[in-house]
């Protein structure tokens, strides 16, 4: 069975309720009232712009301190990487792996994969649509979990307020880091995975000579 896209057969799917409508039927879904689009509008431009913004903020997020720990005798500024090293050297290596995965690996993975997906569409690649769809699904699924470090910082800041002994305050990397997570989540959401399959279909049509 050869696959045909709904768009090529003159239908579009409502992204909210799933109902199929005719391309010439009207601007809004007859059932739930949502605006209909065969493909997400300007998805490549939006995704590229959000990715560029997130990529720029990725550097301050990792280079600036995310927490300041002040005790009676010292004032330490910790970056994300420094926090991972501290967890590792204190013996809790499973958590060190978890935090480095959520805070360092996942944001970088999201930026690289989405950039590669956008490029694959721009250059009209047709190979491996399944694998590219799986990568997109992975980015969409794990993207939210990067927010982990922001919550850890929020809890540390709220708990460690021992006057005279130790206080923890949030560093400026927390702002950049939260912004990276939000921007990459929007970038993933504005990307339209159906476009990954469109090149395949137009090529098949060309091959048939119709």
């Amino acid at each position: 069975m050869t696959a045909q896209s709904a768009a090529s057969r003159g239908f579009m799917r409502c992204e909210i309720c799933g109902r199929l409508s005719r391309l010439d039927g009207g601007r809004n879904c007859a059932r739930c009232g949502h605006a209909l689009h065969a493909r997400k509008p300007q998805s490549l431009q939006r995704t590229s712009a959000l990715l560029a913004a997130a990529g720029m903020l990725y550097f301050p997020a990792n280079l600036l301190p995310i927490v300041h720990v002040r005790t009676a005798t010292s004032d330490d500024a910790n970056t994300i990487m420094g926090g991972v090293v501290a967890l590792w050297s204190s013996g809790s290596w499973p958590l060190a792996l978890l935090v480095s995965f959520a805070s360092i690996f996942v944001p970088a993975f999201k930026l690289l994969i989405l950039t590669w997906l956008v490029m694959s569409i721009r250059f009209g690649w047709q190979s491996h649509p399944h694998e590219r769809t799986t990568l997109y699904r992975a980015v969409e699924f794990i993207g939210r979990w990067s927010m982990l470090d922001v919550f850890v910082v929020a809890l540390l800041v709220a708990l460690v307020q021992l006057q005279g002994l130790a206080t923890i305050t949030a560093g400026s990397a927390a702002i950049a880091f939260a912004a990276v997570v939000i921007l990459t989540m929007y970038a993933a959401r504005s990307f339209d995975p159906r476009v990954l399959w469109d090149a395949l279909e137009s090529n098949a049509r060309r091959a048939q000579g119709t």
Partner: protein
Amino acid sequence: MSSDSTAANVETAPRFLVACPMCDALQRVDAEAGAVAQRCFRCGTVVRHRSNRGTDHALALTVAAAICLIVGNVFPVVAMEANGNTTSTTLVGASLALHLQGMNFVAAVVFLTTFVIPVIEIACVTCLLVLARGRHLERPTGVLLRLRDRLRPWNMIEIFVLGAFVAIVKLGDLARIIFGAGMWSLLAFTFFYAMALGAFDRDVLWQEPNS
């Protein structure tokens, strides 16, 4: 030829034909299938998911999750004891502490993703299920479904719970850490809410079912 038969089927039996949300492949699904997830033949994405648990079952789980969310916000999430001093924080307290340090953007992100959005989302799901039990009003159902779709990725309670575990281990050397009642309630919330969404059958929202 095939295009004519496809078009004819949409006119007569729209419930049989769906488009994959991931790859847009047009395909038929079994309208009478029970509680099985039907997958796209091309990319494997679930194109139709039904549950035979019933709307009341999903509604009961949603209400249970809502109660856990309220309890989780009233009681402290974690408490810390060091040198005879005890400090504790609630969910809202964590974003308040950030706000007091001038970290307003981060405070707002934490406040929205762990309090405001979960509350609105669970209210949306409750209203949707109540509407589905009653008169199937299409416009309010559409509005609520759209709002919920926007909010869904920003409900981050389960990530906050994991973050609390990490924070506790980080502070483990420094002080004695106690899990509060709020923490267990939030953990229960994530389980109840996941079960409620598993039992939530989208077809009951509409009188004319179509994935």
